[in-house]
C-alpha cells in the first residue's frame, strides 16, 4: 500500500526521477501511481504494459509515429515570440503553439500514438473519455485515420458547454455517449469508459486522454506528449538563444504540462510552474486545484492527489474550463511536487478569462480557457522577474469555448 512521505525525501525522490527510475516495476512514481483496478482489467493492463515495452521504442513504430506527427498532425508546432505580451509584461514571452496541431490541441499527440499502439495490439474498437472534447475529437480523428471504431464518453454538462466539439466527433465517425451519472463531467466520463472496458477487456482498447489512470497509462501518455517539451527545448535554444527561466503549463489531469516539463526536469535552472484551476476560490467544491489544495488517495486506478472529503468521497469540482475540471491528477505530478521540482499554483476563473482576453488583443490568438490559466500565472511571475524569459504551453485553441465565452467575456457585448 501507499506509504506517507517523510520530510526530507524530496532530494532522494528527485534524484531517482532524474535517474529514470520512475515508473518502477509496480508503476510507482515514489509512493504515487500503481494500479488500482478491478481484477477483470489486470490481464488487459499486463498486455498493454507488454505492448508499451515492445513497441514504444521500436524503430519501425517510432518511424510510423514520426510520419503521422509530421504529415498529418503538423508537427513540429511553432514557437511564437509574443512581442506585445513581452512588452506589456516586461519580459520575453514565447508560446509553444499546440493550438496549431491538427484538431486544435496537444491531445492529438497522444491519440495518434495510442491508436497506432492499439492497432499493433489487435484492438477491435476504441473507447475514450473526454472533458473539454479535445481528447474526444483527437481520438475520433486518429481512429478514423487508422480505421478503428471509436466510442467517446462525455459528461452531459460538458456536452452542453463544449457543443462544437460534439459535432466534430460525430463528423469524424465516433459514437458519442452522454454520461448523466455522477458529476456529469470528466470524472463520470472516465468511470463510464472504465465500465465499458471492463465489459470487453480483450477486444476493446481504452484510449485514456491524460497522464492519469492505472500503470502504464501515466507513462505511456507522458512519453507520447514529451514531444512538446523536446521541440520547445530545441526551439528556445534556436529562437531565444537559450533555455527559458520559467515554463508555465496548465494542469488538469496533467498531460500537456508533463509533456512540456519532462524534458526540462534535468535543467535545474529552469523553473517549472504547473497552473491548476482555482475556479471561484479555495473552498472545497469551488475549484479543481488538486495538487495545491488536495490530499493523497486512490481514484480511477492510481494513487495520487485528490479533492476528497474526510471520508474519502471524491468531491465535485468546478472550473470554467471543462478540460481542467477533474478532482484527480497524474501521479508523476504528485511526485514532482513532493520532490520540489515543479511548483504548483492556481489561477481563478476570472484570472484565466482576463488572460484569454489579453492574449486575443495582444497576439491575435484565442487560447483555450485551459491554456489561459498558464498565461495568468506567467503574468504574475513576470511582475516580480523583470526581463525574465518565459515559455508558456499554449496547449489548445479556444474555438471550442465559444459557448462559455458567449456567457462570460462576450456577455452583453453582442
Amino acid at each position, binding site marked *: 500500500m501507499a506509504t506517507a512521505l517523510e520530510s526530507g525525501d524530496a532530494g532522494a525522490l528527485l534524484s531517482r526521477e532524474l535517474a529514470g527510475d520512475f515508473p518502477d516495476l509496480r508503476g510507482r512514481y515514489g509512493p504515487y501511481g500503481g494500479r*488500482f*483496478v*478491478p*481484477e*477483470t482489467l489486470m490481464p*488487459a493492463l499486463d498486455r498493454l504494459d507488454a505492448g508499451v515495452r515492445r513497441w514504444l521504442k521500436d524503430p519501425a513504430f517510432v518511424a510510423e509515429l514520426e510520419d503521422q506527427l509530421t504529415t498529418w498532425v503538423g508537427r513540429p508546432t511553432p514557437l511564437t515570440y509574443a512581442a506585445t505580451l513581452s512588452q506589456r509584461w516586461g519580459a520575453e514571452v514565447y508560446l509553444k503553439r499546440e493550438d496549431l496541431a491538427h484538431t486544435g490541441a496537444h491531445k492529438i499527440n497522444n491519440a495518434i500514438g495510442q491508436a497506432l499502439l492499439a492497432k499493433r495490439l489487435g484492438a477491435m474498437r476504441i473507447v475514450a473519455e473526454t472533458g473539454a472534447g479535445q481528447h474526444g475529437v483527437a481520438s475520433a480523428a486518429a481512429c478514423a485515420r487508422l480505421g478503428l471504431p471509436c466510442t467517446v464518453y462525455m459528461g452531459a454538462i460538458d456536452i452542453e458547454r463544449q457543443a462544437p466539439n460534439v459535432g466534430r466527433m460525430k463528423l469524424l465517425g465516433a459514437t458519442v455517449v452522454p454520461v448523466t451519472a455522477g458529476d456529469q463531467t470528466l470524472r463520470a466520463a472516465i468511470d463510464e469508459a472504465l465500465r465499458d472496458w471492463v*465489459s470487453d477487456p480483450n477486444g476493446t482498447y481504452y484510449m485514456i486522454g491524460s497522464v492519469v489512470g492505472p500503470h502504464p497509462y501515466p507513462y505511456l501518455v507522458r512519453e507520447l506528449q514529451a514531444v512538446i517539451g523536446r521541440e520547445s527545448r530545441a526551439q528556445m535554444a534556436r529562437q531565444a538563444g537559450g533555455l527559458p527561466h520559467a515554463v508555465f503549463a496548465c494542469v488538469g489531469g496533467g498531460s500537456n504540462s508533463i509533456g512540456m516539463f519532462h524534458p526540462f526536469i534535468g535543467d535545474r535552472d529552469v523553473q517549472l510552474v504547473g497552473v491548476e484551476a482555482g475556479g471561484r476560490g479555495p473552498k472545497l467544491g469551488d475549484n479543481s486545484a488538486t495538487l495545491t489544495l488536495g490530499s493523497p488517495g486512490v481514484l480511477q486506478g492510481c494513487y495520487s492527489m485528490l479533492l476528497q472529503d474526510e*471520508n*474519502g468521497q*471524491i468531491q465535485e469540482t468546478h472550473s470554467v474550463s471543462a478540460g481542467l475540471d477533474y478532482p484527480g491528477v497524474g501521479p508523476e505530478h504528485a511526485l514532482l511536487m513532493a520532490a520540489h521540482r515543479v511548483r504548483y499554483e492556481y489561477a481563478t476563473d476570472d484570472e484565466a478569462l482576463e488572460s484569454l482576453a489579453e492574449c486575443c488583443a495582444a497576439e491575435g490568438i484565442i487560447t483555450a480557457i485551459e491554456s489561459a490559466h498558464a498565461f495568468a500565472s506567467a503574468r504574475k511571475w513576470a511582475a516580480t522577474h523583470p526581463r525574465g524569459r518565459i515559455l508558456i504551453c499554449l496547449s489548445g485553441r479556444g474555438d471550442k469555448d465559444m459557448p462559455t465565452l458567449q456567457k462570460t467575456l462576450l456577455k452583453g457585448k453582442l
Partner: protein
Amino acid sequence: MAGQISGSRPGHEAIGAAITAASARGEPAIVGFLTAGFPKRERFREDLARVASAADVVEIGVPFTDPMADGMTIQRASHAALAQGVSLAWILAELTALAPRPKAPLLVMSYLNPLLAYGLDRLPSAARAAGIAGVIVPDLPFEECADLKRALEAEGVGLVQMVTPVTPPERLAMLCAAAQGFIYAVTMTGTTGKSVAVPDDVLEYLARVKAVAPIPVCAGFGIRAPEQVARLKGHVDGVVVGSALVEVLERGDDPVAFLNGLRTTR
C-alpha cells in the same frame, strides 16, 4: 465482541464454514449484498437483520462516489446512501452496536479510497470490534494488497480475492492460493447487476476455479433468479446476490421471501 469471531477462530474461517455448511445441505450458499444505509439510513439495522436471517453470509457495501465495478443499481444506491450521510465510520459504529448479533458472518465491501481515508492502521481493529469477518476491495488487485491483508489477518479478518473469466491460469492459481473466506468468482466481464444466462462456458470457467480453489467458491455479478441458482448448483459453493437484492429493498419488498425464493427451484 461478535460471536462468530470469538475464541481463536479467525473470522474468515467462519465465512468458509457458513458457506460449506449451507452447500452441504444441497443448495449453493447465498451471500446477500446490501448497500449500507440504502434505501433508508434509519432502517439499516433492520434491513441487515432481515437479510442476515435468510442469507448464509451478508456483504455490506460501503458507498463510494466512483464505484467503477458497479452497474446502475449499486451506483444509484451508493449515491443515495452518501446523500444521507452514510460513511464507513458510521457503518462501523452501527455494526459495533448491533444487538442481537446476526448468525450470518458479515463481510464489508468497499472501494479502496474510503478505507484509506479511514486509516489502514485503525481499520483492522475497528473491523474486528464491529464483528466483520472479511473485507472485499474491488479496486485493490493482489499486487497491491499485501499490507492490508497482513494487517487484517492480525485481527482475524480475511481479505476476499476476486477472479474473473479472463484471469489467466497462473494468475488464477496465485489468487486462489491467497484468498481468504471464499473465492469470489466474477461470472462475466462487466459491471454488477446485468442478468447472466449462465451458459456452458461460465460453468467451464467455474470448474477451472473450483479445481484450484482450496476454499469455497462463490459466483457473483448478475445473479438474480432461482433458475440461475439452480443451474449453478453443484458447480459452486455459493452465489453472491447483490443488485437484485438491493432492488428488492429499494422497492420495499420482502428480502427474506426473495432470498428464500432463490432456493426453491430444485
